[in-house]
């Protein structure tokens, strides 16, 4: 049963992430789309974490887990660093983490 809730959340979160990222790629080659989904997803997981087990699996593990991505975030930073775009890499690294942490904190505050 838990697996079903995780799968349902991921079936929505994954394609939504991809659609938002593709939309931002129309305007920029910089990873703004991933920044936006990671920030929104961090807020969402903070806001919905205190829930019943099923809702936790649906929203936190399934939806927010699949909506946000760690692999793309790390690869973007590493490739920017390799291309000697050090400023871009550092802005992405620290900007995403600081804003992501603040977003999760805000979500927890609003939920409690």
């Amino acid at each position, binding site marked *: 049963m*838990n*697996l079903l809730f*995780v*799968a349902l*959340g*991921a*079936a929505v*979160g*994954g*394609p939504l*992430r*991809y*659609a938002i*990222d593709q939309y931002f790629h129309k305007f920029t080659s910089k990873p703004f789309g991933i920044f936006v989904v*990671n920030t929104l*997803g*961090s807020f*969402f*997981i*903070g806001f919905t*974490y205190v829930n019943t087990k099923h809702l936790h*699996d649906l929203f*936190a*593990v*399934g939806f*927010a*887990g*699949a*909506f*946000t*991505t*760690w*692999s*793309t*975030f*790390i*690869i973007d930073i*590493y490739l920017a660093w390799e291309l000697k775009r050090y400023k871009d890499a550092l802005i992405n690294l620290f900007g*995403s*983490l600081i804003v*992501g*942490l603040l*977003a*999760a*904190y805000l979500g*927890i505050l609003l939920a409690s």
Partner: protein
Amino acid sequence: MIWVAIGSVVGSLVRYSLGVLLPSNKPGNLAANIIGVALASFFLVLMERRGITKYRLLLLPGFCAGLTTFSGVTYQALKPIDFGYLFETLIFSFITIAIVLPLSRKYVKVRS
């Protein structure tokens, strides 16, 4: 879009299963993120060198992005406050990509 959804669902179910197999979500998410970074680094080189575009959506924005989670890291770093977890995930991720990406570039040859 359907391939992104299928990949995201499978990736999220693997992440969930790691959280069940390991003592808690914390090491589960850490393992999922490290494995996801390693696989995404390898797939990126494989697809670029071999010109494989057919499985790209299923494997990269689908499976690898669904397996890894940014929101899981920001949330775990805050509740309770544990920035050590954040640094641990970052350091292991960068070590992983710094090993897997060059090795993949060395051993995955361009198909002639």
